């Protein structure tokens, strides 16, 4: 028998398992104060999930406000932060929405399903704005490549992302794969999705219009992903009730594909007043958010929900995180047409509620009232914590431990060995073992996919309008200095999309940190958010949404602070995109920007010496902006045939990647005024390599000189170099008289690393 509101009034002193549901005593008391009585078990369940860290952002809210407060002025933002995902104007009546979310903990527990449902969740977020999903990408982080647990989780996570995403028909256009011991026992699975729509198709999650109907459609509701709520269930039901179930949800990508098509069909036909996806906190979240954003009232007949398991209790139905479900608000006149569209796609749909002006969210279960709450108190007025912050006791010592004394390669032979060592380092090696399991071709609009700097997809086939996205983060930089590290992540992502020729417009982020109850972690978080907000303001691109993932730690050891930053950019015609491959012979290779002796947090220090200490590379966002403008102008005016950002591993890795990708060699030289090792392997920010046809050289260098961007001619594309360099018939990359490597050697080192471990 369900615990009704009448019960709650009649039995005010019943003991309730709020602690087991993750609520603190003062939070429980607050619920009692809001309701003026004890909550029913269903209400308690709803508040407990909606006030969880994951749903309420209670520890991060006070910091995340900066993204709004410091938002740069822009006309590009059609829907700002706070909705399911921000919406950006890209011109010609088109809008784009994008967002990145984490699915870290489920992916550790059950790699395949955890990662698969991470993709499913973010895709529904994008659909709930009215957009057709057009691409996905996945920033991933694992423990050391050769660690036993990496071999347990990585293949499953990759197969899960591929198995789900491929089945939806969404091209996977990039991402990141990073290995670091701090992620052993806590891999990060972040999933990003981009969607496109016409301006008039933008939809919001709100239940407006008294008398309008609330429809739940998609998969049936089952007992998966219930987590802590089984505590309640076991209290409510005795023998014969559902037993504790796995907390990781199970995905059905085929259902999600049908859900996408049905949703686009009903949106396209103008049948929907408001729409919301069902993700974390399931029906509790969808109904309370829809009601809270709308006319303020909603009634739900919970027993109408179609179930996979008829023994589920109402508390479980409210909390279930069964995948592939959506909620829509529809006028009664359009109900029949809505249901017909769903039937066409074999998607089940049922009216579960109605919008009213009561100001309350009420839920009935077989005629009995089990929930009667102010919806805002559930969805938006959760607790807010000003968690204590403390700069870590070890921060000074870490920053003082510079890489200056590490043994450096001193001659050509050692530099050559370092280059071949680094190009095969797990973090720099080819990720084809992973990305070849993702479909990058489907939809026929993929212009650039990894290993390019940014992923790029065409939005409008007629005009060539497109978008580019990159996501980046070096967690080592963030550990050395979270404020700077977050800005470096932003700078790299911004630089990557710019290198492709697209104009940066907006930012999303996935902030992966340890426990917010640890003041030192909270300090890292606060600093990273402050750095990112300041950086976005300076670069003039707003944060449109994002996600916070806390409690990423094993025991008391937190992961590297990992604020993954995604930047979305627009390109008016994808035909002018700039790839990373160079050629043909005779084109000139230019290094843009300044190189300094900056090795703290570098891939060289990490891979060769296992060292992490010092201060991260200097950030100069004005310089980043200038570099971006130069690369975009170069693309627009046909002055560049290739561009590639310089980041992990430094210039040598950038040149090697360009040579490998194009299959053509080059003769390069280094400026005299800088140590060759520093020039080749330092990770100074604000730099890129660009390739200029001879006919455009003067125009390009004059532009750089006029704008004050250092541009050094460091090489020329040369496919005939092999014979002179002692490698007849081979393509080689030659750096002054210091070192010569063949592209075959680079490729061999680059491609061997992941298969050697993962196929073993």
């Amino acid at each position, binding site marked *: 028998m369900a615990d009704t509101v009448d019960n709650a009034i009649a039995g005010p002193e019943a003991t309730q398992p709020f602690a087991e549901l993750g609520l603190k005593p003062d939070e429980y008391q607050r619920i009692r104060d809001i309701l003026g009585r004890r909550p029913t078990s269903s209400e308690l369940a709803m508040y407990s999930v909606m006030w969880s860290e994951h749903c309420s952002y209670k520890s991060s809210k006070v910091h995340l406000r900066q993204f709004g407060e410091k938002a740069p002025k822009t006309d590009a933002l059609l829907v700002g932060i706070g909705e399911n995902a921000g919406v950006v104007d890209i011109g010609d009546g088109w809008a784009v929405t994008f967002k990145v979310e984490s699915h870290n903990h489920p992916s550790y527990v059950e790699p395949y399903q955890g990662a698969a449902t991470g993709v499913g969740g973010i895709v529904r977020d994008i659909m709930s704005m009215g957009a057709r999903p057009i691409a996905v990408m996945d920033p991933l982080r694992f423990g050391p490549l050769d660690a036993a647990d990496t071999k347990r989780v990585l293949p499953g996570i990759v197969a899960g992302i591929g198995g789900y995403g*491929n089945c939806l028909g969404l091209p996977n256009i990039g991402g990141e794969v990073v290995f670091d011991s701090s992620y052993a026992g806590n891999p990060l699975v972040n999933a990003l999705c981009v969607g496109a729509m016409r301006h008039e198709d933008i939809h919001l999650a709100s239940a407006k219009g008294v008398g309008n109907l609330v429809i739940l459609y998609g998969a049936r509701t089952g007992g998966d992903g219930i987590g802590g709520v089984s505590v309640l269930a076991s209290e409510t039901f005795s023998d014969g009730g559902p037993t504790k179930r796995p907390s990781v949800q199970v995905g059905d990508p085929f259902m999600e594909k049908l859900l996408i098509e049905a949703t686009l069909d009903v949106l396209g036909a103008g049948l929907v007043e408001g729409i919301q996806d069902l993700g974390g906190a399931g029906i509790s979240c969808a109904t309370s958010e829809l009601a809270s954003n709308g006319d303020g009232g909603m009634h739900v007949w919970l027993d109408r929900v179609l179930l996979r398991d008829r023994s589920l209790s109402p508390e479980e139905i409210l909390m279930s995180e069964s995948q592939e479900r959506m909620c829509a608000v529809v006028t009664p006149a359009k109900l029949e047409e809505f249901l017909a569209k769903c039937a066409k796609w074999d998607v089940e749909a049922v009216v579960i509620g109605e919008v009213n002006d009561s100001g309350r969210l009420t839920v009935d279960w077989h005629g009995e009232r089990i929930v009667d709450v102010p919806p805002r108190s559930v969805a938006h007025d959760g607790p807010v914590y000003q968690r204590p912050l403390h700069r870590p006791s070890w921060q000074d010592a870490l920053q003082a431990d510079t890489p200056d004394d590490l043994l450096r390669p001193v001659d050509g032979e050692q530099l050559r060995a370092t280059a071949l060592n680094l190009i095969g380092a797990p973090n720099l090696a080819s990720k084809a073992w992973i990305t070849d399991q993702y479909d990058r071709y489907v939809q026929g609009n993929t212009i650039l996919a990894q290993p390019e700097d940014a992923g790029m997809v065409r939005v409008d086939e007629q005009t060539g309008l497109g978008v580019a996205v990159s996501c980046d983060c070096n967690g080592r930089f963030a550990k050395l200095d979270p404020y700077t590290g977050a800005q470096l992540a932003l700078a790299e992502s911004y630089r990557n999309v710019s290198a492709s020729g697209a104009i940066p417009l907006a930012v999303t982020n996935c902030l992966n940190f340890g426990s917010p109850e640890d003041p030192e972690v909270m300090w890292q978080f606060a600093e990273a958010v402050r750095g990112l907000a300041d950086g976005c303001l300076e670069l003039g691109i707003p944060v449109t949404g994002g996600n916070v993932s806390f409690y990423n730690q094993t025991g008391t050891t937190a992961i590297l602070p990992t604020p993954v930053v995604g930047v979305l950019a627009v390109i008016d015609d994808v035909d002018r995109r700039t790839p990373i491959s160079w050629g043909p012979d005779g084109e000139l290779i230019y290094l843009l920007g300044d190189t300094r002796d900056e090795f703290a947090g570098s891939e060289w220090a990490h891979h060769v010496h296992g060292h992490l200490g010092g201060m991260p590379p200097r950030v100069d966002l004005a310089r980043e902006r200038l570099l971006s403008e130069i690369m975009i102008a170069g693309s627009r005016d046909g002055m560049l045939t290739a561009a590639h950002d310089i980041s992990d591993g430094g210039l040598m890795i950038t040149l090697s990647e360009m040579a490998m990708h194009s299959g053509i060699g080059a003769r390069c030289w280094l400026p005299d005024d800088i140590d060759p090792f520093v020039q080749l392997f330092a990770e100074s920010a604000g730099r890129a390599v660009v390739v200029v046809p001879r006919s455009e050289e003067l125009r390009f260098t004059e532009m750089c000189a006029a704008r004050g961007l250092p541009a050094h001619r460091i090489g020329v594309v040369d496919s005939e170099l092999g014979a002179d360099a002692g490698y007849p018939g081979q393509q080689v990359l030659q750096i002054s008289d210091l070192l010569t490597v063949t592209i075959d050697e680079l490729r061999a080192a680059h491609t061997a690393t992941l298969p050697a471990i993962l196929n073993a």
Partner: protein
Amino acid sequence: MSPRIGVVTFPGTLDDGDAARAVRFAGGEPVALWHGDADLKSVDAVILPGGFSYGDYLRCGAISRFAPVMTPVITAAGAGMPVLGICNGFQILCESHLLPGALTRNQSMHFICRDQRLRIENTSTAWTNGFAHGQEIVIPLKNGEGNFNADTATLDELEAEGRVIARYVDVNPNGSQRDIAGITNARGNVVGLMPHPEHAIEDLTGPSLDGLVFFSSVLNALVGA
């Protein structure tokens, strides 16, 4: 009037839009066909595109084979209408017994997406007449279950009759017997192909323009007929 090429959408089909675009690029008129309608809308040829129809549940293509649209497709194929099955479409053609053999899980057990080199070995089918015999082409391949298998007698028969239309070159990506990437029926009107020609029709989005020839071939065959 340009030939009308039907493109079937099953629940879970993904590359229908790409196939329709390829038909358009080649100069044909794409016509959307729905799995639930036993109606070919007077098309001149049919493409069963790639994807995961019915989620690949039970067995790839095993459920789609029973879709209402397949009844007229099978009848028309028997009467000589050109039919091309790409990837999942190839699997459906095998399940429908319009083509022999079966596509099983890749030898690597992983889904694989790569630019694949093929050699065209039969240029007399409705879908390959625009190629030169022995021509090597590069088009995307993306599948989890593309490992072509048949018994030895069937394989020998396919070889003897020249019904292997394309073979993998350099790398056999999925373990297919005798490197088989595509086959045809005895009449040469029904072709199954594991790689995706519809993803190689534009410089901007594909590794080559080689894929377009499959679609221009069928237009040639129809106009010439």
